[in-house]
């Protein structure tokens, strides 16, 4: 009779017995994306995100059709000959501006998130891996940046450097970095005590290889969650800055700016505000749901069978 047909994850799942609880690696390998899509949040999140992305990327291609009407009337009513959703206070077609206004927001947000992720992951992993004084100094500097809200930081940068695209992307990305570094650092600290890291050290594996081959693949879970969250926040911040009139400058078509320009006429012609508001809401909800499903997918690898 065989005694050990139980596979280990079953054992952990029924984590009932087990004398000494052994140190166990947090992750087993199963396709990540499948687990994300197995959840309601994952499915809804992905659908919402894709819809808004399609709109933002394909919208500009539809412009000739949408701008077919040159409105002359200011604040034209919707569903009139002056365009499906009417026109704004300068007589510009709302639908066309809406189609054209999402691309910059999304591109900026993705760039800012990517910048933050790269910086943050490198800083966090290094801090945890090198440890000691280096870690202490890096984390103290992190705390300094954390003391100023990201939006206030962005406003400070814009005051000094002016409202330009690269300023927005850089300042949002750079202020993301310490927050991401915290996550990367604690994820790394969780993995670095694993014996397989020590084993790699024992075989004198070059340190960059240890970081890249042994560590990084094992912290992709928390990092992907963080990427989803940071993307959500990036979209929020960049849209907010546009809304405050400190992002793209008129006459550019941009969702945040559109909301700012049209909100005076909210009660007469709400579509100029509502279309972009709904789009931003759906996009951020979508990315946040995705981030949440990443978190669940990551968690489900560890404990539950």
């Amino acid at each position, binding site marked *: 009779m065989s005694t050990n047909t139980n596979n280990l994850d079953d054992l952990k799942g029924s984590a009932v017995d087990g004398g000494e609880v052994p140190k166990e690696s947090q992750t087993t390998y199963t396709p990540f994306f499948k687990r994300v899509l197995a959840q309601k949040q994952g499915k809804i999140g992905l659908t919402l995100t894709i819809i808004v992305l399609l709109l933002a990327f394909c919208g500009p291609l539809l412009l000739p059709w949408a701008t077919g009407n040159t409105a002359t009337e200011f604040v034209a009513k919707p569903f009139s000959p002056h365009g499906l959703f009417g026109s704004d206070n300068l007589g510009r077609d709302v639908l066309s501006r809406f189609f054209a206004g999402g691309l910059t927001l999304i591109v900026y947000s993705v760039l800012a998130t990517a910048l933050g992720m790269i910086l943050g992951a490198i800083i966090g992993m290094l801090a945890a891996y090198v440890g000691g004084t280096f870690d202490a100094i890096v984390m103290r500097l992190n705390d300094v940046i954390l*003391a100023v*809200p990201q939006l*206030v930081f962005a*406003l*400070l940068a*814009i*005051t000094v450097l002016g409202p330009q695209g690269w300023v927005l992307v850089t300042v949002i990305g750079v202020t993301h970095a310490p927050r991401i570094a915290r996550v990367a650092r604690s994820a790394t600290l969780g993995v670095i005590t694993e014996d397989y890291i020590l084993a790699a050290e024992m075989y004198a594996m070059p340190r960059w290889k240890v970081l890249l081959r042994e560590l990084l693949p094992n912290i992709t879970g928390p990092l992907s969650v963080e990427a989803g969250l940071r993307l959500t926040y990036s979209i929020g911040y960049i849209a907010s800055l546009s809304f405050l009139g400190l992002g793209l400058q008129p006459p550019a078509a941009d969702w945040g700016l559109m909301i700012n320009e049209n909100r005076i006429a909210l009660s007469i012609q709400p579509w100029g505000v509502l279309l972009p508001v709904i789009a*931003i809401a759906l996009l951020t909800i979508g990315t946040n749901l995705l981030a949440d499903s990443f978190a669940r997918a990551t968690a489900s690898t560890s404990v539950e069978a």
Partner: protein
Amino acid sequence: MFGKVIGRRLIFSAFILIAVSLLVFGATLLLPGDAARAILGQQATPERIAALNEQLGLNQPAWQRYFSWLGGLFVGDFGTSTASGGSVAQLLSDRIGNSFILMAAAAIISVPLGIGLGVYSALHRGGRRDSALTGISLVFAAMPEFVIGIGLIAIFATSVFQILPAVTLAPPGEPVWGRPEQLILPTVTLILVVTPYIVRMMRATMIEVLDSGFVEMARLKGVPETRVILRHAVPHALGPVAQVVAIQLAWLAGGVVVVEFLFRYPGLGQALIDAVTYRDVQVVQAISMLVAAVYVVVNLAADVVGILTNPKLRSAA
């Protein structure tokens, strides 16, 4: 011993504030070469530029300007607004109170609300009410504050109901609490943004605590469920949640900017946006420092809560 821990945190807080001041001041050094011209625009006369340079102290070396600025902060002298020509302290003094009202109202409501809903959600883990709460908090946590604010305006102030004012109506000089109804929408917006984070964190921490050995042990001792939750579980969840609450309160200090702008509320945020638009560096610096100070204070408070709820830290050297 307790004092020693707190003392160390105090020193660290001071370090943070000094470092932030360096950062905030350092940012102004990035101003384009001819700062005065950048501020005043191309049409400015040489005399005005010279006057502004004098006023900003741009003729002095940077470190000297830093120390006189820092020294000023300690005595409440935040410098002179380049846009209005008045003192920054004067400009901000009545607005601080307005912003504080907004933040305090939001904090007083959202902290207990968030903790309560989080505990409720954790106790009904996996059930329909829990997933509904989780879903709602995910949605609200996602949206930027101005999106939520506009949603509220559309529903309660313009298209659907028209029962609340869409913007602040009080003329300059009149206290904002003179017309309490104008405070409702901005406060609700802030609550809707802040509460979801507290709910989520409280729920996660509670679930972790409810799964812990000592909660199971309490149940196996025959302790009634309400006592299990109130005496054994909740106190352990408060420490970590205090940290999140602190971060959220600090965030309020920043998020209030957008909300004030949206509702034309005469607070610090509105002043900050104006200052950024006019590149009024002194005002931006002053508000940044104030916001950092709020962050440091609430974090210190969270540390105290963390220490008080954990006897290990309390008795540690």
